[in-house]
Every structure is written in structure tokens, then in C-alpha cells.
């Protein structure tokens, strides 16, 4: 079905890059999400303001604009600033880095909301009890809050991952060799664009399907762990 003049294995191999960007961006998004959810309930006013601005702006602007802004706009801005100070500078961002950072940054905003809800569902008495036992703030976070928040956050994080993986298709426009870009190259070379993009879409569908099964399995395990 997918002959594509020998391009099929190349497109399938490009899945590795899609998953690599996806997983790295997801790790980054979780870190941003934890920081963001902490900042949303911080005591300092400006920290809360920063976190709220982050989630408001990121969720209100299309991913494509943010990606273009980061990949093309940011280097230009730095170069212009350097030039105005009398330096000659040429910045070239690595597409993998730009893609991972942008997607991680965007989905960090969604993770922030997920974690905020998760931390809010842990009864306040638990942290107080741990405090009474003499645990430091960090220890309370590591031993009491984080494990439970992760359990509450699991369904939400699974949904973020599913949307995030699909968003990685966007970074093909900044020339990273993932599924979409390879499908495009194959489409142009073989003149069979439908076959090439159908294959690409089925690969994404495969990732989504496996993720759904994985999410189901993880949630069942977490539910079991929660019983004890």
C-alpha cells in the first residue's frame, strides 16, 4: 500500500525525532507546570502576576505564532539589541532546541493548570501534619505533596501529552526532520502527496492510540496504588 519509492522506511524512521521532541518537550512542560503551579499560589504578588500572565498569554495565542516568534523573532531581537550596542552578532537557533523549548513552554501553561488543580485537591491538613513532624518545606513537597499531586494530575497530564505530540507536527516548518517534514519531502519526490501524508497521519494515529492505552494502564495502576 505504501510504496512511495522507498520513502516509507524514512518517514517511519522520522518517528524517532517526533517522539524525541515530544518527550523532551513534555519533560520541560512538566517542569514549567510545577514551577507555574507553585508561582500561582506564591506569596509575592509579582510572582503570581507572572504566572497568571504566562498561562493567559500562552493559551490565548496560536502555537504557530509562538513558534515563529521564538524561532525567527527572538534571534532577530537579540541581534538588533546587540547592534544597537555596537556588537555584530549572528544567532542561529538549532531547530530541535527551538521546537522543544517552544512546545515545552506552551504546554507548560496547560500543565500549570493541571498541577494547580492537583495540588488543590490535597487536604491542607497533610502538609500541616508533616510540618508538625518536623519536615522541611522541601521534604514535605517531595514526600507528601508531589507523589499525591502526580496521582491527581495523571489524567490531565495524559491529555496534555496527547495534544502535545500532535503539535510537534508544527516544527516541520522550522526544518526539523520529523514525520511531517519527511512526508513532505516524500510527497514532492514521488508525486504521491496523498499516500505520503496518509502514512504520516497513520503514524501519528499510532502514537495517539498507544498513548491512550498507556494512559489507561497508568491510571489503573495509580488507582490501585491509591487504595493502599
Amino acid at each position, binding site marked *: 500500500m505504501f510504496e512511495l519509492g522507498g520513502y516509507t522506511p524514512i518517514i517511519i524512521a522520522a518517528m524517532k525525532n517526533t517522539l524525541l521532541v515530544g518527550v523532551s518537550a513534555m519533560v520541560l512542560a512538566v517542569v514549567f507546570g510545577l514551577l507555574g503551579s507553585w508561582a500561582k499560589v506564591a506569596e509575592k504578588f509579582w510572582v503570581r502576576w507572572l504566572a497568571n500572565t504566562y498561562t*493567559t*498569554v500562552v*493559551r*490565548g*495565542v*496560536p*502555537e*504557530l*505564532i*509562538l513558534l*515563529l*516568534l521564538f524561532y*525567527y*523573532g*527572538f534571534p*532577530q*531581537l537579540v541581534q538588533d539589541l546587540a547592534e544597537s550596542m555596537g556588537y555584530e552578532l549572528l544567532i542561529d537557533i538549532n531547530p530541535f532546541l527551538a521546537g522543544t523549548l517552544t512546545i515545552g513552554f506552551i504546554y507548560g501553561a496547560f500543565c500549570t493548570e493541571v498541577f494547580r488543580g492537583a495540588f488543590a485537591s490535597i487536604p491542607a491538613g497533610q502538609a500541616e501534619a508533616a510540618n508538625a513532624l518536623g519536615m522541611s518545606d522541601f521534604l514535605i513537597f517531595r514526600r507528601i505533596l508531589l507523589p499525591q499531586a502526580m496521582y491527581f494530575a495523571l489524567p490531565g497530564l495524559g491529555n496534555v501529552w496527547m495534544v502535545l505530540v*500532535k*503539535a*510537534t*507536527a*508544527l516544527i*516541520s*516548518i522550522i526544518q526539523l526532520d520529523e514525520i*511531517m517534514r519527511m*512526508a*513532505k519531502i516524500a*510527497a514532492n519526490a514521488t*508525486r*504521491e*502527496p*496523498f*499516500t505520503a*501524508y*496518509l502514512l*504520516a*497521519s497513520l503514524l*501519528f*494515529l499510532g502514537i*495517539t*492510540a498507544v498513548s491512550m492505552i498507556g494512559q489507561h494502564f497508568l491510571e489503573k495502576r495509580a488507582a490501585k496504588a491509591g487504595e493502599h
Partner: protein
Amino acid sequence: MSMEMIAEYGARLLDGFWVTIGITSLSVLIGLMLAIPVALMRLSDYKVLKWPSYAFIFYFRGTPILVQLFLVYYGSGQFRVELTELGLWQYFRGAYFCAVFTLTLNTCAYTAEIFRGAIKSVPIGVIEAGRACGMSGILLYRRVILPQALRIAWPAYGNEIIFLMQASSLVSIITLLDLTGVARRIISETFAVYEVYILVALLYLIITYILAFIFKRIERYLQRHNKALS
């Protein structure tokens, strides 16, 4: 960016804004009309109705919109001869048609899934009461189930429309001059990269929150019987 530049390119950005709004509204309207039958098919007991709708929803929710867009816009070229014979090529050669076609199918799948959940969560007692009053089939759906389902689905559906509006920025990649497309065109002429992108990002932000505000008002209207929420 200077004031003169904003004045000079403002008109073009406004054109782009209307393209964005046009594509989004068309897709949302047609998508909604298609989504209700698809959701009902998905809930049907008959496998011939259930499975095609399940596969449709699974495919469009499980693949990136960008791939779907390329599949329709570039992919249709592979079937040019067949499409010409059917008299459809004149539509599929145009980027605007392909954009609306793809976004419609995409939002249809997401909307059908939202409505499926909403229809299922209409309390059974309400449906039984409707039956007891002698309503059947279509009348029951039209007067009892669908209005209640709309109320339940509304917050999620509002988010879907906002997501679709943002996703419509992807049509700039298939050469359309929506808000993003105009921005990219202006940048290629002026090299004012970050100024234009930041301006356009702000415009999207404003559209998003205006839409969110409107949907919130409609939600309040739909929930007007519920004093605790309004």
C-alpha cells in the same frame, strides 16, 4: 514599530482578520450541523452506524490538523483526474475550500465527541418524563434531550471554538492570507520580524478573550434557571 507602519499595514491585517473570522465561522457552523448526526450515530446501537462514526472521530482527533490540511490540500492533487471527472477538482484546487473543508471535519469530530458525552449525561428521568408526556423520537430529541445536552456541552464547546480559531492560523501554511498569513507576508517585505509577530500575537489574544467573554455570557444565559451559578 512606528505608528506609520501600523497605519500602512493595519488595513491588510484587518483583511487577514476577516479571513480568520470567516474560515472559523464557516467551519464552526457547518461542523456543528454535521456533528449532531455524527454524535447520534456514535450513540446508536447499530454497528453500521456506530463504527464509521467512531473511526471518523478517532482519526480526526488522533492526527494533527496540519497533516489533515496537507492531506486535503496537497493530497487531493494525487486524484486530480478522478476529481475532475466528478466535477470536484474546481473546489479542491482552491486553498480556501480545502481549509474550510479540513477545519469543518476536524471540529465536527471534536464537537461530536463533546455532544456524545453531553447527550449521555442528560438525566434518564428527564427522558422518561418526556416519554410519559407522549413525546417520541425526534420530538423528544428536539425538545428535551438536545437543549439539555447543549447546556451541558456549552463550556467545552466554547473552548473547542477558541481552539479552532487558533488552529485556523495553520491555513497560512497552505498560502491563505489569514491574520498569520498577512503577518508573514508583511514580515517578508519589512523584515520587522518580532514587531509584527508580537502585534499579531496580541490580536489573537484579544480575539481569544473576546470570544471567551461572549461564551461566558451565553453560558450564563443558558444557566439562567440555575441561581447558584449566575
